[in-house]
């Protein structure tokens, strides 16, 4: 019978277990008992070094420096209670304060607790010299993050902080412990698995007086991988300097590949501040500041796009053969749609598409929008990748919002022709991130390809290959006509971005003033340069600045300086 064989097998399993327990408890019992009584296995951790972050030409943006940390082992302190007062004397600290540190950092009897972080070399040497008086105190040399460029590219880099409860539940299986340090935001967060070092250490057996008997085992620590970014820190610096004391964002990318050359958001923060206790006031401030310095506006900020959207409306109208570039509409300064009057910001009289783009004439685009209808506008907004994440390798990217008739109906509200007219000039519910707007301009700059923006070029030894852009299938003649309009915006005397100081910078672009309820309007200037052979697609965005001309001036400043420094 097979059940007998199962019985025998079960019996054998039991005999194996009894044998194993017998071996451990009876044969080796004395040995293990002595191990447990003396608590004599001790772990001495050895930290690895977290990966560095570099810019496109290998300049180190985030480095590691050695820092001296004074640590105590609680088990030893219990045996030598005098140590704390000795230590307090040497460090010029009060005994209760050190005791409080120890309480806060306690993990287990043998895990060292750091009582003085990042001590100066002198203190470290002082402790080492007095070692005989300080049983249980050690100097641990730990790597510490260094930021040679201070707060430059802070949003892209992210920062390091103590692990929070949400992260620890996700990461526990990967060996993370409470009190570990992990990346928050930016590259530090999204590439945490690559950057992170693996802790090593030694397990030693010690005798009853705490002296090392023998090494039980050793595991070397492993360093994290270095990460190379696509941004050029020299360009990043010029862009960020232009944004100082302003609220806004700027993105520069290669239109052919989607490679990000610079990505700035202002106000910013200093990534090194978050692990140091002394900076708690600064940290509180950056988190509670109403201007949200922690937000990377380039990818996480969603704003109404304003007239920039006219480029999309124009492309749609040409593509759907609703107009030809020579088609003229008359602008008397306003247009009645339904029962309401829609204004233009000036009176433009009769103009064709190129002129209308150059002057950013609203009436012309009201006409286009009404010719196209809302569904086609929605289609084209989606086609140009508005309303969804670009998939850039940074966390917390917002997707923006593209309105549509069906979405409106789901909220049980109606869609009027006036909404269509507004949609055509980028007002209404449409929301876009600065990165999306730069990506939109890249499509016009590269002749119709939608590229995926990326900011990491290499992780360790592995090169990251950019994804090939997807052809949107827009006819070249339509792109050419829109581009002529974009060029006119900067080049024509009456263009909205002609501030007379572009010199030999051949920029094409579109301004946008997006009205915000109850606050000053946002100012956009997006485009690409040089016009004949575009190498940069860009977006300069200023929050609540009032007029788009401010963004134009800022872009002009940035590109003039880049030209001066021979960076473009």
């Amino acid at each position, binding site marked *: 019978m*097979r*059940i007998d064989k*199962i*019985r025998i097998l*079960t019996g054998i*399993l*039991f005999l*194996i*277990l*009894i044998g*194993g*327990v*017998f071996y*451990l*408890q*009876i044969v*080796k*019992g*004395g*040995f*293990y*008992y002595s*191990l*447990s*009584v003396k*608590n004599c*296995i001790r*772990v001495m*951790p050895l930290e690895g070094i977290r990966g560095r972050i570099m810019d496109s030409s290998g300049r180190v943006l985030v480095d590691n420096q050695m820092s001296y940390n004074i640590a105590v082992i609680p088990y030893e302190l219990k045996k030598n209670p005098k140590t704390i007062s000795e230590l307090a004397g040497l460090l010029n600290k009060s005994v209760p304060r050190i005791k409080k540190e120890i309480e806060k950092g306690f993990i*287990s*009897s043998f895990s060292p607790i750091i009582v003085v972080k990042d001590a100066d070399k002198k203190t470290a040497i002082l402790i080492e010299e007095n070692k005989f008086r300080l049983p249980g105190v050690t100097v641990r040399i730990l790597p510490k993050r260094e930021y040679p460029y201070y707060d430059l590219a802070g949003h892209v880099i992210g920062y390091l902080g103590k692990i929070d409860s949400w992260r620890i*539940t*996700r*990461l*526990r*299986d*990967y*060996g993370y412990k409470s009190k570990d340090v992990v990346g928050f935001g930016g590259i530090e967060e999204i590439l945490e698995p690559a950057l992170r070092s693996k*802790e*090593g*250490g030694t*397990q030693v057996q010690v005798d009853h007086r705490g002296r090392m008997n023998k090494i*039980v*085992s*050793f*595991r070397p620590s492993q360093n994290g991988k270095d990460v190379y970014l696509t941004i050029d820190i020299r360009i990043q610096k010029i862009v960020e300097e232009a944004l100082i004391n302003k609220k806004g964002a700027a993105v520069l990318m290669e239109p052919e590949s989607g490679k990000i050359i610079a990505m700035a958001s202002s106000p910013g923060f200093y990534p090194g501040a978050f692990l140091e206790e002394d900076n708690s006031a600064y940290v509180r401030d950056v988190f509670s500041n109403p201007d949200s310095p922690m937000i990377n506006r380039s990818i996480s900020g969603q704003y109404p796009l304003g007239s920039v959207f006219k480029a999309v409306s124009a492309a749609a109208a040409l593509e759907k053969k609703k107009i030809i570039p020579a088609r003229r509409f008359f602008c008397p300064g306003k247009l009645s749609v339904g029962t309401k009057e829609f204004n233009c910001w000036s009176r433009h009289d009769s103009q064709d598409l190129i002129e209308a783009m150059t002057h950013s004439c609203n009436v012309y685009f009201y006409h286009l929008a009404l010719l196209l209808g809302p569904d086609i506008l929605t289609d084209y907004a989606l086609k140009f990748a508005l309303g969804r994440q670009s998939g850039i390798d940074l966390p917390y990217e917002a997707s923006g919002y593209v309105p549509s008739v069906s979405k409106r109906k789901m909220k049980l509200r109606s869609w009027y022709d006036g909404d269509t007219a507004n949609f055509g000039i980028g007002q209404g519910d449409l929301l876009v991130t600065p990165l999306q707007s730069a990506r939109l301009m890249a499509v016009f700059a590269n002749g119709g390809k939608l590229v995926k923006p990326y900011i990491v070029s290499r992780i360790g030894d592995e090169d990251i290959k950019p994804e090939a852009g997807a052809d949107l299938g827009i006819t070249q003649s339509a792109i050419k006509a829109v581009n002529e309009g974009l060029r006119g915006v900067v080049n024509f005397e009456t263009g909205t971005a002609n501030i007379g100081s572009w010199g030999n910078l051949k920029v094409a672009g579109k301004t946008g003033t997006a009205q915000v309820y109850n606050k000053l309007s946002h100012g956009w200037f997006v485009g690409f340069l040089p016009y004949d052979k575009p190498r940069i697609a860009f977006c300069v965005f200023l929050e609540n600045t009032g007029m788009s001309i401010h963004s134009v001036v800022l872009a002009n400043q940035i590109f003039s300086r880049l030209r001066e420094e021979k960076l473009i």
Partner: protein
Amino acid sequence: MTKYAIPAAAFLIVCLSLATLYSDIYPKNVFGESSVFLRQLIWIALGWTAFFVFSRIYYRRLLNFIYPFYSLAVFLLTWVLAFGGARLGAQRWIKIWWFNLQPSEFVKLAVILVLSHYFSRKGLGEIRLDIRRLSFFRGMLLPFLIIALPFSLILKQPDLGTGLLLMLIFLSMVYFSGVKLRYIISVLALGAIISPVFWHFLKDYQRDRLLVFLNPDFDPLGAGYTIIQSKIAVGSGRLFGKGWLSGTQGQLNFLPESHTDFIFGIFSEETGFLGCLFLLGLYLFIIYSCFRISEKSDDNFGKMFSLGTGIMLAFQMYINISMAIGLSPVVGLPLPLMSYGGSSLLVTFISLGIVQNINRGT
């Protein structure tokens, strides 16, 4: 006497479990872990209720609910995985009110039920059940397909221990049902051939654990640390143990997961070799009772189910204890009736309750 065999032994084990849990958390009370003890008490009460309810329902009436239960368990498993997918790491729990439900525990019961039902069904023209005549397809492949879905979902979690356990339960039940031996052997051989491929699908930490088992020094600070500390805990118990509440390994926090997967370490440290013999004896008693009930039952479903339950308990206990004493890799399986954890406790009690009812029928 036989009537009270299973509840009596289960009662003793549960008492030992509570005593051990109390001892484990006793010095850690300051950290608010006393709720572990309280929760376990509630679960045990629920478990006993389930045991008595199921021991009083005629088990053949459960047959109608087998497939809905199986579908529900698989659905919960998928659900847990879908939610885990958004996060990193293994996700094995569904949080309901104040407790965590672990669907993989319920899947074990569902698989035993379904396999028992499958192998106790007669074909239309058959006068008596003859599993030996079954083809490879009907005897091996079809029942394998039944467990393939939950099995792959559990591996995906990833929960190596439960996956292995499901496989062992499956093979034992197929063997017991009378399927031709060469089918089983050919499947085992196939498994041995494809296991290197399987290695690629393991998560890093699971590979680490297997490597650590082969050589504990491979990772002395991670998984290897647990094995070493657990061996110290067990070994230091010697013949009589250190006495209740006097263990040091668990209480000084050397042994991780001491109230769940490594509770055997705490128990054996405090009760010694004699205590271990007593506990193993209780398990053996329950398991052999299941086998005896299986043998005595004249209903094929009853036979299969009792055996499946006995096998489940035997392997689970074997894997857990052998990992605590360093004989097998750390795979993370609870010790039935001993470890802290409501789902495992509830499933064990339900299974034993059904077996108890099968016993009545004989």
